[in-house]
């Protein structure tokens, strides 16, 4: 393993030359300037309680996502309601760690990209919700599944617990584990590439349903 790693680092002439150029370019920078500590950014939005959850709902809906609120005991029914427009026989990928009865559930049993492309929906949990920006962060734990399953199907039902919602970006960054793969989702996929007019629905799921539970 150690050998394999050593081999991965290509300590070739390019590396040494680039680092040498960097050193020469910064010859005028004093050691104190080099060791500047990280700045303290200003605080984000301050929100608590109902205001926090209301802001989250308002901001998620602003991206043209649908938000449903429910009590924990109504979760299965609310998720089923979100999937209902797909009709009878529609299937939904459900990650192994999500303990929920979902109609048409398909477990992610080494599904290929082509398999996923043939499945209408996906239901996942989330890691954190950010109220100020209306963002949901997945860190792809067992109740969220690997990245591809929440990407290829066209409808994503994402379950966020009320105790997972934080006020703003700094609160979210502070609580995340950087070694995990992460996807920050703010509404359905969108583009502004044509005349800078925002259009929802390009390559990612074109429909995003958020279920806020608790």
């Amino acid at each position: 393993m150690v050998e394999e790693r050593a081999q991965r680092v290509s300590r070739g002439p390019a590396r040494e030359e680039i680092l040498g150029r960097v050193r020469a370019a910064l010859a005028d920078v004093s050691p104190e300037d080099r060791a500047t500590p990280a700045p303290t950014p200003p605080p984000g939005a301050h929100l608590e309680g109902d205001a926090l959850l209301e802001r989250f709902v308002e901001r998620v809906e602003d991206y043209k996502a649908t938000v449903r609120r429910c009590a924990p005991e109504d979760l299965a029914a609310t998720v089923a309601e979100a999937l209902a427009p797909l009709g009878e026989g529609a299937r939904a990928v459900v990650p192994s760690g999500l303990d929920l009865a979902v109609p048409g559930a398909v477990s992610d049993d080494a599904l290929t990209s082509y398999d996923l492309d043939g499945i209408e929906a996906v239901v996942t949990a989330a890691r954190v919700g950010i109220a100020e920006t209306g963002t949901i962060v997945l860190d792809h734990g067992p109740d969220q599944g690997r990245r591809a399953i929440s990407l290829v199907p066209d409808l994503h039902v994402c379950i966020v617990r009320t105790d997972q919602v934080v006020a703003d970006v700094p609160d979210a960054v502070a609580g995340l584990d950087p070694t995990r793969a992460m996807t920050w989702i703010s509404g359905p996929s969108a583009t502004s590439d044509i005349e800078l007019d925002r259009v929802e629905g390009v390559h990612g799921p074109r429909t995003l349903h958020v279920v806020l539970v608790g």
Partner: protein
Amino acid sequence: MSATFVGMPPFPTAARQALADTQLRHNLAHATGTIRAKRAKVVGEVEHWEDLRLAGAAVKARALADLETNLVRLEESLTAQGATVHWARDAAEACEVVARVARSHDVDEVVKVKSMATQEIELNEALQAQGIAAWETDLAELIVQLGDDLPSHILVPAIHRNRAEIREIFRSKMSAAGKPAPDDLTDEPAVLAGAARQHLREKFLRAKVAVSGANFAVAETGTLVVVESEGNGRMCLTLPEVLISVVGIEKVVPTFAELDPLLRLLPRSSTGERMNPYTSMWTGVTPGDGPQEVHVVLVDNGRTRALADEVGRQALRCIRCSACLNVCPVYERTGGHAYGSVYPGPIGAILNPLMRGQGDPQVDSLPYASSLCGACFEVCPVRIDIPEVLVHLRSKVVDAHREDRVPKAEAVAMKGTAWAFTDARRLAAGERLSGLAGRVLTRVGKARLPGGRATAGRLPGPGAAWTGARDLPAPPRESFRAWWRRTDGGRAEGPEQSEQKGGE
């Protein structure tokens, strides 16, 4: 199907051609106006925006001040997480690394996430030369690629195209690249986006190798970050078996926590959203999830040259939001192609000269492509003082041309002025001459400035370059020194004064 910026004329020539294109000017005015309003609205929502800018600038400045440490740390973190790190001194070396990895997997195509670094190194052309097709998957990049066109904006490379033009490109060009556009294609943006979804889906599903850039690379953890909207980025970063990320060495951020100010600044400055639809973060190889072979190519290609410039190095803080393009009065009128680079607008006017040095007439013309109004600095989320760097680069261009065999008209004029101004008699003679010119012009000239002062109209010879875009007021008929002599410093008013209006 690959256009390049090679052989572009200097900015004034290219700008003149662009200004004559009324469709282009209409498209740009509409698009930049829209995005300016959106940005202003979401930036206005943030209570501490100015402090946030300071924090963003500080993060990037700190990363650059200790770049060697940060790069070595990034390499260690990436390697520990199972990624392979490559270093590339220039564009050719970077392209070769990508081609080598692609060839080792026997592929004849790769899918691409929109990336400025790969545009800069002209990766698509290099891969094409080796028989590998590089498919752009961002909608705007797709429009540019299918149309055999050049990007004209950092964020929205097809900003110069309107919906009708895009529909035509899709109808005529999609079939040669894969799934054709549907027969009933309209010019509704939603319908056009739908056509792109269908066209690219088969490419995403079958791709073995993807190429991306990165918005940020965290030294502490080895985390790479891609900020996007459409989901094409997620497709490329997730579905293929092999991922190659081409990352400029200035993209490094010291710690994961320091992503905070940047992730608050970038979407609001860039697309005018509180947050962009999708941000992907990955740290090397994630077992069982996404590409299991991950390469990162750290590219210099002129960045260390920019870093060596004490005034100019702040340009490396740029997070490619393109807010400076959208507010620039010059960019809004000329569009991006006139800048002759994948980096257009105010940031391009400093980045290109900083990364490529002086000597090329096209690059040398860029620091002058500005009225120095300062709007770019005001919107820059990482506080790059673009006007300061522009003025600094103008001085470098002048310095670089001091030894030219044929001196520039400006240099000759400055030399002549110095010669006249250093001797009282020469100056007096000059003043008499200009006074005479003033008398003649006031009498024969028809053009008047507001307030009634005569103007010189069009100057002959090299002076025409000055008067082509400016009014040159007719010189006063009497110089200050002559007036002082005649009136004893104003104590004895003479008749000459009454005839003169608005002089001195």
